[in-house]
């Protein structure tokens, strides 16, 4: 879940040509980007994996190119934040060519976008990707005929097998970028208004005609651009022309535009598609249907959860942690380091900083690499399999009704499940949601009640060791809070619930290579992000301990930690470093529980509270970036008391009813 970003802004005198990868969601733009640039960006099998722009410089046959990977779009009239990002790339950075990646089995939809690009006046190279899947379904496309009709270069590829890549590179480096000769023409009345609106528009990176069509179709996302580039009178004039049109025509402008484009796209598709009998892929499509079936979908979901628990909870948090933490660190590394430090470092204070009870090696590294690394790695592997198989959108189909209760649409399943990997990335993925209201609720719930992989693994390992009952109590508490908080947020945040609209990709066999690369890059990202913070957190504890402030803070927090939550004073430390990273906080509790400092009941209460606790620093900062400081602070001021109040209530209830954990 990392992104290498090399931002290149307008204004640089660039000797390179910009090549923008544009296409419908989930057609493989990021795979093509990776193959062209050698730079890995996350690739998955669900629409909306890419929510930000990635850039990569390459040289081809002596020419220099800047390849731009963009979020997928169905239409260049944006309906959500990620789609707007792509349209704005075209509007603000002038690409030399749009390298349109299309799904070969979905030619009509591909052409809908090609027509929009040609209307915008952008030269196009059309890459029909996933030719293998098209062939499985008995679809072949006469690329030469298509090339002749469109008047632009058409290439066919099967990206994961690197088929057709040479031709694709050649078409980019040839530099013969052509504008498609096919553009849709509209009714005389519409053309009249397009012309009238165009006359108010300035010269821009995309054609005035395309801008006029967008404006007349009621594209509100252009508002800021209009204000920047036009005077107020012109903006008003355009608005009144739009209104005038809607009075004169009973058929909405946008609808008529879509219909015209679809007619044209269908005509072209008819001419170049040959259909034969399907050749394969039946088993996969059967699995695709079963996994979202109203009845059979439930056992499939149960099976997925069980496999996840076995792999991450039992194998990762049990076997691997045992091996790494207890054996490798406990028996070999830590004694060796301790010895070495004692011999090599003369100063007592430095020795304690490295290998003491709050030692950078004995605490920070042991936690990070001994406990959390195996857990996150196994989770990332399992998660990559889920992502690449195409199961996640099907999960969204299964859970849509439940999410409706929380004021969300099923589409929000994607960021929420991603949040089980890492909340920071998940906050960014909320861009695929259509309304700000939905993004707000989703980010709030992510911060409140969705534990990330590292934390989840620690929790599973700790509670799994206690009893199934403990795990059950924890899970029920979190789901309860999620539902109640979501329900309240749905009531309190103004606005309508966004409708559920999600494209469901075909089930695909996950490619081992992509799983390996993705897991590796996410693990590296995790180490880079987590280890320094672990070090920092440990160092802070060490300093606080040395200046005897830790005891003061623990006594200060005692009424809450001991009084309300019924935990030992030392648990304050875990919550303290939980501010930096929640997984680190959880790992602290894990160590306490292992050391017999927490009773089973205290373990459950502390873990529930820690899960609900305010998110880690990185997650917090990302939320500020996406939703603004004010919103984030309001959210945090709700979350902190909620976590403590709920933890306290749980502590009281468990004791009052004598629940055995």
């Amino acid at each position: 879940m990392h992104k290498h970003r090399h931002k290149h802004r307008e204004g640089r005198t660039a000797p390179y040509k910009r090549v923008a990868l544009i296409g419908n969601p989930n057609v493989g733009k990021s795979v093509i980007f990776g193959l062209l640039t050698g730079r890995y960006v996350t690739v998955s099998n669900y629409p909306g994996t890419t929510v930000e722009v990635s850039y990569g410089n390459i040289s081809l046959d002596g020419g220099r190119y800047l390849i731009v990977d963009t979020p997928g779009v169905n239409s260049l009239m944006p309906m959500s934040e990620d789609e707007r990002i792509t349209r704005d790339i075209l509007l603000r950075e002038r690409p030399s060519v749009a390298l349109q990646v299309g799904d070969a089995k979905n030619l009509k939809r591909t052409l809908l976008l090609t027509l929009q690009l040609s209307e915008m006046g952008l030269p196009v190279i059309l890459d029909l990707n996933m030719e293998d899947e098209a062939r499985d379904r008995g679809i072949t496309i006469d690329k030469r005929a298509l090339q002749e009709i469109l008047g632009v270069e058409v290439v066919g590829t099967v990206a994961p097998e690197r088929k057709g890549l040479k031709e694709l590179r050649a078409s980019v480096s040839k530099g013969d970028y052509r504008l498609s000769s096919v553009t849709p023409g509209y009714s005389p009345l519409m053309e009249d208004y397009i012309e009238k609106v165009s006359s108010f528009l300035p010269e821009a990176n995309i054609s005035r005609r395309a801008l006029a069509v967008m404006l007349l179709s009621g594209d509100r996302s252009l508002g800021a651009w209009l204000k920047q580039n036009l005077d107020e009178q012109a903006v008003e004039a355009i608005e009144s022309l739009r209104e005038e049109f809607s009075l004169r025509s009973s058929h909405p402008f946008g609808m008529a535009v879509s219909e015209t484009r679809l007619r044209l796209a269908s005509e072209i598709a008819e001419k170049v598609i040959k259909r034969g009998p399907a050749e394969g892929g039946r088993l996969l499509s059967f699995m695709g249907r079963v996994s979202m079936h109203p009845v059979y979908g439930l056992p499939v979901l149960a099976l997925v959860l069980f496999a996840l628990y076995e792999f991450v909870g039992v194998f990762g948090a049990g076997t691997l942690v045992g091996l790494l933490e207890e054996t490798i660190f406990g028996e070999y590394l830590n004694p060796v380091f301790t010895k070495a430090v004692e011999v090599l470092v003369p100063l007592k204070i430095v020795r304690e900083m490295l290998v003491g009870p709050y030692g950078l090696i004995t605490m920070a590294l042991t936690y990070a690499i001994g406990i959390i690394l195996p857990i996150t790695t196994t989770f990332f592997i399992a998660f990559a399999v889920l992502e690449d198989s195409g199961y996640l959108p099907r999960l969204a189909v299964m859970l849509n009704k439940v999410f409706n209760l929380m004021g969300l649409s099923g589409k929000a399943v994607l960021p929420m499940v991603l949040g089980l990997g890492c909340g920071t990335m998940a906050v960014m993925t909320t861009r695929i949601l259509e309304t700000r209201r939905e993004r707000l609720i989703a980010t709030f719930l992510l911060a409140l009640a969705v534990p990330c992989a590292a934390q989840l693994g620690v929790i599973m390992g700790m509670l799994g060791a206690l009893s199934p009952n403990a795990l059950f109590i924890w899970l029920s508490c979190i789901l309860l809070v999620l539902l109640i908080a979501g329900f309240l947020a749905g009531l309190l945040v103004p606005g309508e619930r966004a409708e559920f609209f999600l494209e469901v990709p075909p089930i695909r066999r996950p490619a081992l290579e992509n799983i390996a690369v993705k897991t590796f890059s996410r693990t590296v990202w995790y180490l880079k992000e987590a280890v320094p913070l672990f070090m920092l957190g440990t160092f802070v504890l060490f300093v606080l301990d040395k200046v005897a402030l830790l005891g003061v803070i623990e006594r200060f927090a005692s009424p809450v930690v001991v009084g309300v939550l019924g935990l030992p004073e030392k648990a304050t430390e875990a919550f303290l470093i939980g501010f930096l990273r929640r997984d680190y906080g959880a790992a602290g509790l894990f160590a306490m529980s292992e050391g017999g400092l927490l009773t089973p009941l205290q373990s459950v209460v502390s873990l529930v509270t820690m899960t609900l606790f305010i998110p880690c620093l990185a997650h917090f900062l990302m939320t500020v970036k996406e939703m603004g400081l004010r919103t984030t602070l309001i959210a945090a001021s709700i979350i902190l008391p909620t976590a403590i109040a709920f933890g306290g209530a749980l502590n009281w209830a468990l004791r009052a009813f004598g629940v055995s954990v």
Partner: protein
Amino acid sequence: MEKERPCRTYTASETEKGIFEDEALEAIWELAESGDVRLDDAVREVGSEEGILRMREDGLIAIKDGLITLTETGRPRARDITRRHLLAERLFADVLDIKDYEDDACRLEHAISPAVDEAICTFLGHPPTCPHGRPIPKGECCKLYTKKVRPLVQGLPDMDVGGCARVVFIKSPAMDRLASIGLLPGVVVKLQQKKPSIVLSIDETTIAIDEDIARGIYVKSEIC
């Protein structure tokens, strides 16, 4: 495509007489629904005794002992005009979602030809009653469907799972989003499942949508 023809113009007296007769016949039909039709009730409804008496001369009604009965010529005409009025009400209320439709229904009933009336009736699925609950007189088209038959045009959630249908029109706030993936009138869709969410496919694209969106997609069944 064929050019639109200019509308035929009627002479004032021709239309006025026709409309008056239609309205009166309709009023008599409605009164007959709840029993005998007394002449003075009919006069009160229609507002012109002279007009009613002229209708007797034209052979549309018979009057005996202060009670009105419809004649061989009057009966089918009264039936048809009532049928058109009530169908128009259904069309406005159900499909076009117009609340205040009474006046428009009254105007439309005079404008519909029998062929169009059957088309509307079929489109609406041969509804048995009007929005107020009055029975709609059956037309030829309804008699063909003695059993309760599916309406020709239905909301997408009413389709059978596994069935195919052609989109007739879309009336949904998600219209633009549907259009962007090529779901527009004229396109054939296949319904894969209805629960827990509606899943349908268009060519090689599969999408999942809310029932709310699906309700706004009106389709006509086709053979897959």
